């Protein structure tokens, strides 16, 4: 019986060591949650926001960064401004694109149309690209998403953005937890904005209102535009004297449209 217990103890300890090593011997990396479907109102998006969407898609859902990174698994995309023309001039080029935008789209939806030398699938002599078609399969970009990524790629390479934001409302898949966001019209009146985001629940602006946050009636005299932008989008970056952190909502950036943000900032800086 003693032998039996020793053997069992030995095995349990071994399992414990393996588990311990896996928990404490290596860093715990939290894998990203699966992407969630969300409706975004493309109609009220700024081009900056659209480019930012493209960047998020590039890093997240598109898994582009898996290959297009500094490790040389795929061509660097920030040099695409010069590279695209080179590809189009390449005698091997048999695709249908005639300019950079078309080349980018073609690269995404039919990667094998032209394979950059040295990057083809092994054994195919650069006739087949290892890159997946971004419009189907595991990536399955919608038209709007595809265009957003193109906008990002152009912006990222210092090119002029030639694509337009599609106006039809398509669902866009993003890595974002916010599920209930129905598309809404952008506000253009400052009163509507202040009301909608409920600033006066905590702040006094023109007339006596909430006092959980500092008075904003003369805020434009004290703070400049950059500070205010930061105060709205990242409230805990600096805390107004005499107030607690974590009180001012920090998700305004995800809810306010860029156009509304600018109107709000115009307004606040003018409060002197």
């Amino acid at each position, binding site marked *: 019986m003693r032998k039996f217990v020793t053997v069992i103890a030995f095995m349990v300890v*071994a399992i414990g060591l393996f588990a311990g090593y896996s928990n404490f011997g290596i860093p715990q*990396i939290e894998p*990203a949650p*699966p992407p969630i479907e969300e409706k975004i109102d493309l109609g009220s998006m700024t081009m900056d926001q659209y480019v930012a969407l493209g960047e998020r898609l590039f890093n997240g859902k598109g898994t582009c960064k*898996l290959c297009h990174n500094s490790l040389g698994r795929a061509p660097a995309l920030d040099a695409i401004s010069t590279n695209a023309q080179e590809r189009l001039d390449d005698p091997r080029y048999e695709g249908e694109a005639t300019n950079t935008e078309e080349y980018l789209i073609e690269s995404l939806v039919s990667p094998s149309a032209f394979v950059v030398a040295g990057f083809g699938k092994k054994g195919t002599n650069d006739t087949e690209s*290892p890159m997946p078609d971004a419009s189907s399969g*595991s990536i399955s970009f919608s038209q709007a998403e595809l265009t957003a990524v193109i906008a990002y790629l152009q912006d990222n390479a210092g090119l002029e953005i030639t694509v337009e934001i599609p106006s039809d409302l398509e669902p866009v898949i993003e890595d974002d937890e916010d599920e209930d966001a129905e598309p809404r019209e952008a506000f253009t009146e400052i009163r509507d904005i202040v009301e909608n985001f409920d600033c006066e629940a905590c702040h006094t602006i023109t007339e006596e209102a909430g006092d959980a946050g500092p008075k904003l009636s003369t805020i434009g005299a004290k703070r400049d535009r950059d500070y205010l932008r930061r105060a709205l989008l990242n409230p805990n970056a600096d805390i107004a004297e005499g107030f607690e952190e974590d009180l001012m909502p920090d998700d305004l950036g995800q809810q306010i449209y860029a156009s509304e943000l600018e109107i709000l900032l115009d307004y606040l800086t003018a409060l002197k």
Partner: protein
Amino acid sequence: MIIIDKIAGIYSLKSNRNKLVPWVVIVLLALVLLANDAHQNTIEAAQQVAEAIEDQAAAARTHVPAPKLTAADYPTVAGVNGRLVVWVVAQLHLWFAAFVLAVPIFVFIIEAIGMRTRDKRYDDMAYEFIKVSITAYSLTAILGGLLLFSLILFYPHLFTYLSTIFSETMLYYALLFFAESAVLYLYYYGWNWLQGGFRKWVHLTLGLMLNAVGTTLMLLANAWLTFMMSPAGVDPAGVFSGDSWAAIHNFLWNPINIHRFVANIAYGGSIVGAYAAFKFLTARNQQEKAHYDWMGYNANFIAICALLPLPFAGYYLAAEIYAYSQQMGITLMGGIFAWLFIIQAVLIGTLFLSANYYLWCGMGRSDGAKRYTKYIKYIAIVLVGSFLVWFTPHTLVLTNSELKSLGGPHHSILGPLGIMPAKNTAVNIMIIFTFLSFLFYRRSNKIATVSWEKTGNICQVALFSSGIANILFLGIYHGYFTNTVYKVAASIPQVVTTLVVIVGSLVLDSFIYRKSRDVGPLHWGRIPERAQYALFLLAVAFTWLMGLMGYIRSGIRQHWHVVDIMRDASAQAFTPTLGYAANVVSVAALLFLAMVIFVFWIAQVSSSKTLPAGYWKE
């Protein structure tokens, strides 16, 4: 069948088994004959079902696409985490199944060796091996049933979708399972009955059939899981073309088949080894000790033989995953799972070290081993060194924040592929030195009588040194002077070198030791107790490793049930962290351990008797 197993098990494991076995066999045979009839009916019924399905399909003409699910499509049952249940049950089923399928493979070989050498000890050992596995057989079946239930319960839509594609194979699976049971019981209970001359051949044929059926079973199950990784025979929406073979023979089917087949043998060997080790520790006399020492040695030998080719099968599997989808390959080797391969390295290092350690301890059985013991410390140093190289995470991202700074946690970009040549080199060196341990062990009790012994040894040294030099050269050259992103293929010349060294040196040694003398009789049983713990460690490490690799195999599908075709929309679609996975695997491994102990205990109980005085009327 399960009940029969229990009853028969209780009777057959006793000392008076000789009288009972024929009786059991007769009953079993009668049952099998009856079952055969039923079998016939089942086949007919099955054919009818198949025809009905065919008709239906013909009527509808098309199959349905994979359903698009929402979280509401996954039933919650009593607040239980469905994924966890399926995970643990599947893992337990796999452990038992791997064991139960692997043992007959080497039992068949050992039986054949026994028939050839006419050494009864082999036959007895083969019988004892199969006896260990048969007690686990009914548990395999129970766990399989449980797995089926939990899949239907927690993942009804996935199960329905898969069963529309695999309806035929699932049917054959069920039938094969019955066939497997029948042949296994016949093979086991008929062991003592089918002895001598023609009967022995009949018995061996049964063993062959058993393996054919068992392996086919595994191949079918592998088809289901590889379909989920690399679907074939369906269009992008998941509509099945009707070509079952295409779905079975999908891209990753064979790579997984090979890796599993070999890994299962090693695993089976290690479990039987642990059994023998325990029997050795609790042996009551010298004779028993000697017997279980011999059994443990053979089990370890089987495990090592299957262990040596495993790294290659593993890299082949990884290369095929990469070839199937570069995205999946990078997720496997370069994403968050990169750290898993560090854990894997620790486990495999443990396997190699304990297997070697056991061999070294075993040299004490021979009086001639002294000639070689002085080299062992060098082997140990090389093994530990190679292990450390394998284990070193050169280009891994170190912390969470570093990972984020490189572009977010989603599929980050690590580059362990870049150091694959170094790791390959280490693995090959480890294998060669493990083989060297084995060579010393083989030689330890022999004295060569050929006149050219010295020359022969010089040749051996030359063979080993040039092989090792070549492996090092290839590793350094490919690792640091070439510039390909994907370097796994560069390992092929290294593998070939390793194989040449192993085969060449085996051939050479067999000539050197032709007509050799023995130093003296081998003292079976003369081995320290701590060596037995190496066998336990081998079994535990194998079990745990299997669980871990099961996690990565499903993990690289990420949030897909069937990659690119059917999305996992459940609340549990996320990939858990390594620590969490390790904890699940550990708990499952403890459960497995408890079940194994229970199984052995039952076998023990059946052989103990209480004779209550005056209880029964005279």
